[in-house]
């Protein structure tokens, strides 16, 4: 067969690295970590192989969400500097491949979760994938500045799924963990969206800083950090976690609110001068990791 010059790179079979990139591996760490913490905080531990499979399914489900998100938003991603080099907007992959991969991975992760653990965990995983893809990506994100507020629920599912995979039922503590991530998502994403505002504006995505302006977004970040801090200490107040967790949650959340207050006080509109926003964004990731790690440590100490 003679060599044929192809005009579009996507005519080549997709490289496996690009398929892997569809799953947004860097986002997956947080999802896997919170799911694992939900499982480890549960009063019952499943056999190691079933626990491993449950976490694997959560990771695969998150990967499926990433693939379907990139499939749906390929045109928008092409308009943003941050995302223009992804496999689909860069033309390194056929769009259908991403769709088939995402749908296949969704079904596979849910089925495997159901077979390995229980069908309530599988149903929650399916709900989280559908919520992320249909409610957040397709419906809310291109339409309303509140996209992150409601869509944040999708990212709040993993600890709940981890807990249910271990125990087979829903309890107050995993619901609080859900609430913590749900309330953490807006200040976390809005801090990021402040210093990449021009990207979202170019793509026509109605993120809060684009629609409501920078001062309003800073106010919202601060206001959301207050109920988030209250939710973080709630497991201790309600007697679901011990004093080690309570003290750690209080200190971590106090620092979060202080950093959010600094964002509120900042008047800069140039991303180069948005050090408080960048600091809050970085700290918010640390805050979630630390809070969940301390919760697990506290539960294990109590046991």
């Amino acid at each position: 067969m003679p060599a044929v010059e192809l005009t579009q790179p996507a005519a080549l079979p997709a490289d496996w690295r690009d398929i892997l990139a569809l799953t947004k591996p860097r986002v997956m760490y947080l999802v896997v970590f919170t799911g694992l913490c939900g499982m480890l905080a549960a009063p019952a531990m499943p056999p190691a192989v079933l626990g491993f499979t449950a976490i694997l399914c959560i990771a695969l489900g998150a990967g499926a969400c990433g693939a379907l998100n990139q499939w749906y938003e390929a045109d928008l991603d092409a308009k943003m500097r941050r995302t223009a080099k992804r496999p689909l907007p860069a033309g390194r992959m056929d769009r259908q491949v991403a769709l088939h991969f995402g749908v296949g991975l969704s079904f596979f992760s849910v089925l495997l979760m159901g077979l390995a653990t229980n069908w309530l965990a599988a149903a929650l995983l399916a709900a989280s994938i559908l919520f992320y893809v249909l409610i957040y990506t397709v419906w809310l994100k291109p339409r309303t500045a509140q996209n992150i507020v409601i869509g944040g629920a999708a990212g709040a599912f993993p600890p709940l799924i981890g807990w249910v995979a271990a125990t087979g039922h829903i309890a107050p503590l995993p619901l609080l963990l859900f609430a913590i991530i749900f309330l953490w998502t807006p200040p976390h994403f809005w801090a990021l969206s402040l210093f990449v505002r021009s990207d979202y504006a170019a793509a026509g995505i109605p993120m809060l800083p684009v629609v409501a302006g920078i001062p309003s977004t800073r106010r919202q970040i601060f206001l959301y950090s207050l109920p988030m801090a209250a939710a973080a200490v709630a497991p201790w107040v309600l007697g679901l976690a011990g004093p080690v967790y309570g003290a750690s949650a209080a200190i971590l959340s106090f620092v979060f609110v202080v950093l959010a207050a600094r964002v509120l006080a900042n008047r800069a509109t140039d991303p180069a001068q948005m050090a408080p926003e960048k600091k809050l964004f970085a700290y918010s990731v640390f805050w979630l990791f630390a809070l969940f790690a301390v919760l697990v440590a506290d539960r294990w100490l109590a046991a």
Partner: protein
Amino acid sequence: MKLEDEVVRRQRERARITAWLLGAFVVLLFFITIAKTGINW
């Protein structure tokens, strides 16, 4: 590298990875079955 060579290289690489993943899945299913049936070694 010729385009044809690149196509073959990518197909082989993907086939190899798919085979490894399928193998790992079979092993995982085996251990899941053991755990679900409650067999103690």
